[in-house]
């Protein structure tokens, strides 16, 4: 049947439908990047995921600058930065995870689990804190990997999987600490070998312009820079956006979806370890019940920073600015002489405003 080659090609049959569409026939302009007008540039800026958080940060800054006298001096600013960094480092990792389409409710207690593990392992087994630090790193990465593997194997929503691991970890934190130390907190590790060097790595302070700045602030900036680079400039970044945006499509073109998701959970594990080590070497002892509730603050920062709950959209810089807003709020409330109990109320208000604003932004983005 196919020995005759058809010459009445499809193009010969002109279709009214096809002919009526002239957009596909227009000659192509030589350059795809024509000179952009001021208006277009503004429109482009508005489409950045972090634009809402920048506006929010300015608003909060102005508010406390006006209301709280001590907020205006540099020394208090260093405290603001420190608060932002301590909350912001896990938030950056959580933002990547959320762009990849998943949640991690276990991140708050995972920080405490990491400090507890390092402290008790060092005190009980080796006597050297660096061995404890290494042990905690392996543990934190394993918790992250476990979250990812459970997600893939069970096919459950990450909300449920990590809610389970959150509860389990919380129980383990309390029970194992009680079992090992007979107490609700770990003992002082400041006289163990390696403590001074570990403290200088994780919990030292620098004097700059008369401000005493925690090393965590620099780590925070480094986390943001590396995360932003990964997201926007590497293949893995492209895959993170894709698996969160539409996992099936990504898989269909060969993106290793499972590896990406497990990797993102391990990234949260790494950030939890990092902050856990800071808290351990800053406070010397660890309360086993700490960390509960922080997981929601991490998520809130990522959302304020422009991450979509449904995945596929967001930025690490946005999450950092979200952290900065929360840091300003914690300290601002204190400097304004208000009861610190108001903090959560403000967080709630900001989250609501940010979500409404970001939803509006997204409508603009998808409209083009």
């Amino acid at each position, binding site marked *: *049947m*196919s020995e*005759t*080659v*058809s010459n*009445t*090609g*499809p*193009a010969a*049959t002109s*279709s*009214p*439908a*096809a*002919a*009526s*569409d002239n*957009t*596909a*026939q*227009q000659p*192509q302009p030589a350059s*795809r990047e024509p000179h952009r007008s001021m208006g277009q540039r503004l429109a482009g800026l508005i489409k950045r995921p972090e634009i809402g958080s920048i506006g929010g940060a300015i608003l909060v800054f102005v508010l406390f600058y006006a209301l709280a006298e001590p907020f205006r001096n540099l020394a208090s600013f260093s405290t603001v930065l420190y608060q932002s960094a301590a909350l912001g480092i896990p938030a950056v990792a959580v933002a990547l995870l959320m762009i990849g389409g998943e949640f991690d409710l276990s991140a708050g207690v995972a920080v405490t689990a990491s400090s507890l593990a390092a402290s008790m392992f060092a005190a009980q087994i080796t006597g050297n804190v660096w061995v404890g630090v290494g042990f905690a790193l392996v543990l934190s990465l394993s918790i992250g990997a476990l979250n990812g593997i459970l997600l893939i194997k069970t096919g459950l929503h990450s909300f449920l999987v990590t809610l389970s691991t959150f509860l389990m970890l919380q129980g383990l934190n309390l029970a194992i600490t009680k079992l090992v130390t007979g107490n609700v907190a770990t003992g002082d590790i400041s006289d163990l070998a390696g403590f001074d060097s570990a403290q200088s790595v994780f919990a030292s302070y620098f004097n700059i312009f008369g401000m005493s700045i925690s090393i965590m602030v620099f780590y925070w900036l480094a986390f943001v820079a590396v995360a932003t*680079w990964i997201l926007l*400039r*590497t*293949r893995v*970044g*492209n*895959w993170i*956006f*894709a698996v969160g*945006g*539409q996992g*099936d*499509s*990504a898989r*269909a*073109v*060969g*993106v290793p979806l499972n590896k990406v998701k497990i990797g993102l959970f391990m990234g949260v594990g790494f950030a939890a370890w990092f902050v856990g080590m800071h808290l351990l070497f800053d406070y010397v002892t660890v309360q086993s019940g700490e960390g509960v509730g922080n997981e929601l603050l991490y998520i809130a920062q990522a959302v304020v920073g422009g991450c979509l709950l449904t995945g*596929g*959209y967001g930025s690490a810089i946005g999450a950092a600015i979200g952290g900065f807003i929360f840091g300003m709020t914690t300290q601002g409330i204190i400097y304004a002489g208000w009861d610190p109990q108001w903090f959560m109320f403000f967080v709630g208000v900001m989250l609501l405003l940010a979500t409404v604003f970001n939803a509006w932004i997204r409508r603009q*983005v*998808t*409209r*083009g």
Partner: protein
Amino acid sequence: MTQQKGHPLIRLTDVSKSFGPIDVLRGINLDVAAGEVCCVLGDNGAGKSTLINIIAGLHQHTSGRYTVDGHDVRFGSPREALDLGISAVYQHLALVPLLPVWRNFFLGSELTRGVWPFARLDKAQMKEITDQALQNMGIVVKDLEQPVGTLSGGQRQCVAIARAIHFGARVLILDEPTAALGVKQSGVVLKYISRAAQESGVGVVFITHNPHHAYMVGDSFAILSRGEIDLRARREELSVDDLIYRMAGGAELESLQHEMGR
């Protein structure tokens, strides 16, 4: 990579498929040649999707022969089919809506510069290639940075097809690419399909419910009915009215009309 027009790419000989006790396809004979559009038509549940899923490596046939370039194949996964240049474009699974056009185009096959761990996306080159590939096929996209979700349904379909061709598709399988599109958008896609076949020399398997769409682009037609091929004809052997008549069930429809007394 342009192949001689008419050179046979894939051939199904007496292929059948059953899911457990249910025979979904029986004794299918079909061939697709380079540079030609083979339209597969049929009613709901006729087995069209099952047929192309076998071709694309999503399912395996129960009996019969499936050959690619004359060699017998039995695919374990879509990846294996893809490696032989057989690529399926599904309407809803093709692209990631929030991702920019150029990032979608290269998704899973990104170009990088530098060595690990400092390998970074070669943005400039990827944008240029995307631009070229789209231009070659006559697709106009205002800004390659715009999210794919902001393109029209027809443009999106075209970008997905352009991508498949750019990454080496020799056989392109399209399952109802015009089903959700309006007249104008369908026109964009249809024109693009015939252009792809003629200029890139790919063989196209085009599934549709619409005999008008099929006749606009088809070089040959196969009508599936309850798992069997009811009609296999080349374009010069029938008119669009024949196609509509046969597709509507022909004699069956006449008797239905008769029954209803109209």
